[in-house]
């Protein structure tokens, strides 16, 4: 949006900050502030301390963090693979079959994640598919939940991709696999990295389905945050939340640093 007069620009800026600060920035600042506090009875927290962070380093919270990161990495990689594959396949389908497939991939988002967790629990609690009580069931649940986002962003990117690239490549004698590897995937790379970042972030924060599925030896960080706040340790929970936030942010930054030549288009 182009705003030309100075006064109007100031007005737009103040509206932005009025909305952005309380809705997005303040809650995060509150969490950060709380994580360094022992007491919050007045307007501001009091009793500055690093105990919560020291506890994290000493206790099993680090394990939970590693669990979360591993789960998110596995789930987002699997989701991106499945979502990309499905999106590439869907491109060749007729419009009607395609709509059915789109709807199927939307399903895990439309259904409450508690229901997704429960359905996996029921489905995989008996041989031959006995996953209950293993880390795999948590990873599976996360994959199911985030694949929809991967599918959707890759589908959107494919729709934007000029078919002339694929056709020119085929005209030059490139087989479909070669075209996919040398032309389509490189051109899609920016969208793929964006998709995997989104999937990773969603998986890092997933709680409701995880709650129903996690085995004792595979407890992701959000579950531990929930447990901490549930037993009243709000400030310890806040510290864990800050760690979760920071880790997710670091990974997302790393993903966005993947320089893709295709972004120079």
């Amino acid at each position, binding site marked *: 949006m182009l705003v030309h007069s100075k006064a109007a620009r100031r007005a737009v800026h103040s509206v932005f900050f009025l909305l952005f600060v309380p809705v997005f920035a303040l809650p995060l600042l509150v969490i950060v502030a709380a994580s360094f506090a022992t007491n919050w009875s007045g307007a501001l927290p009091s009793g500055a301390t690093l105990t919560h962070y020291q506890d994290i380093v000493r206790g099993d919270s680090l394990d939970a963090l590693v669990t979360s990161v591993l789960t998110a990495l596995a789930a987002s990689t699997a989701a991106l693979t499945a979502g990309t594959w499905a999106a590439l396949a869907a491109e060749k389908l007729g419009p009607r079959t395609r709509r059915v497939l789109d709807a199927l991939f939307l399903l895990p988002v439309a259904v409450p994640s508690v229901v997704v967790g429960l359905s996996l629990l029921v489905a995989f609690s008996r041989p031959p598919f006995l996953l209950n009580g293993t880390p795999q069931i948590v990873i599976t649940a996360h994959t199911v939940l985030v694949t929809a986002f991967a599918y959707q962003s890759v589908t959107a990117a494919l729709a934007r991709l*000029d078919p*002339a*690239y694929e*056709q*020119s*490549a*085929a*005209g*030059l*004698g*490139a*087989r*479909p696999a*070669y075209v996919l590897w*040398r*032309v389509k995937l*490189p*051109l899609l790379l920016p969208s793929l990295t964006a998709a995997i970042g989104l999937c990773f972030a969603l998986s890092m924060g997933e709680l409701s389905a995880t709650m129903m599925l996690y085995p004792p030896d595979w407890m992701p960080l959000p579950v531990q945050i929930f447990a901490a706040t549930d037993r009243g340790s709000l400030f310890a929970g806040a510290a864990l939340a800050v760690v979760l936030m920071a880790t997710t942010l670091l990974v997302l930054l790393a993903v966005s640093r993947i320089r*893709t*030549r*295709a972004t*120079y*288009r």
Partner: protein
Amino acid sequence: MPAAPEAGIRFEEVSVAYGRRGEHIALDSFSLTVEPGEVMALLGPSGSGKTTALRTVAGFVRPVSGRVMLGGRDVTGLPPYKRGIGMVVQQYALFPHMKVAENVAFGLRAQKVPRAEIPGRVAEALEMTGMAAYAHRHPRELSGGQQQRVAIARALAIRPGVLLLDEPLSALDARLRSGMLTELARLHRELPHVTILYVTHDQVEALTLADRIAVMDQARLRDCGTPQQLYRRPRTAFTASFVGTANLLPVTVSGDGVRFAGRTLTVPVDGVAEGATATLCIRPHLVGLGESPAKDGNTLRGTITEVQWRGATHRLQADVDGHRVLADLRELRHTPALGDEVTLHFAPEDGVLIPAGIGADAGGADGTGADKAGRDVVAAGGSRDGGRDGRR
């Protein structure tokens, strides 16, 4: 560049239809033979099916019936990557993530040409198109004209027997376009064995480059012939108005000539039946102002409705008994004013009679036809009315 296998193109009753029930016909039993080494232009307005025809050769469109033959081989069901065809499209479609040299090498790598051979062939193709100095640039660092040269180099690197050009110049501005036209003509002289199918809606490109022109309209082939045939003796009114500019007058055959608006004009009748209705085609640059200097010349009287100065020429538009007649004249000393009564003349041999029935749509005399630069413009180097013509 060593010779590629000679390959002609033959369309045999090729039909293409889109839509769920094939209700939209894009190509209607299209038959055409392109000889090996020939440059064939598919000329027609947008939506005429010319690009669809080209895409059936490339393999991107599957005909519902008919066959496409390439060098005597039926390729109708063959996927694009097995056809070995070079293709250049309007938007170049250079791979943005590869440098120029990698773009040109793409087809060679894809076809598993021995690794040692690739650099030489890439250099050769870039040399031919004058892009050798840009091998290490990315496409985004090149101008439109340079990108088009790279696209041509990429298509030529695989040494195709057939080169498909889909409106290759239409994304370039007028000056670049005329330069590229010269380049393409030179390339074809250097590669006389390469068969070229050239899709365009620009008659100047078709007339300049093509050995033969296939005129298309509404999914059908309307006419096919050498540029001279189509220009001098158009067989349909559509051809007459699409290839060059034409005055098209409705006439009735009578004796040794035709009747037009109550007067008799002498033109070659060529066996059209007495009393039959026909369309008389006269090119604007063959119409003169004033009484005919020759005894047997035809005269028309009309009122000037438009005078355009085009630098080296004047274009007069006159109303002759309710019909519009255009005359392109060498720059006039004394231009007639709007509303002046004028006499126009043309020689009998300059009138071409188009029998009714073939392409009965005689409505092309104005609008589309009048905006196109004529053959005379091409003869003068194509730049004469480049600035005023405003193509696209």
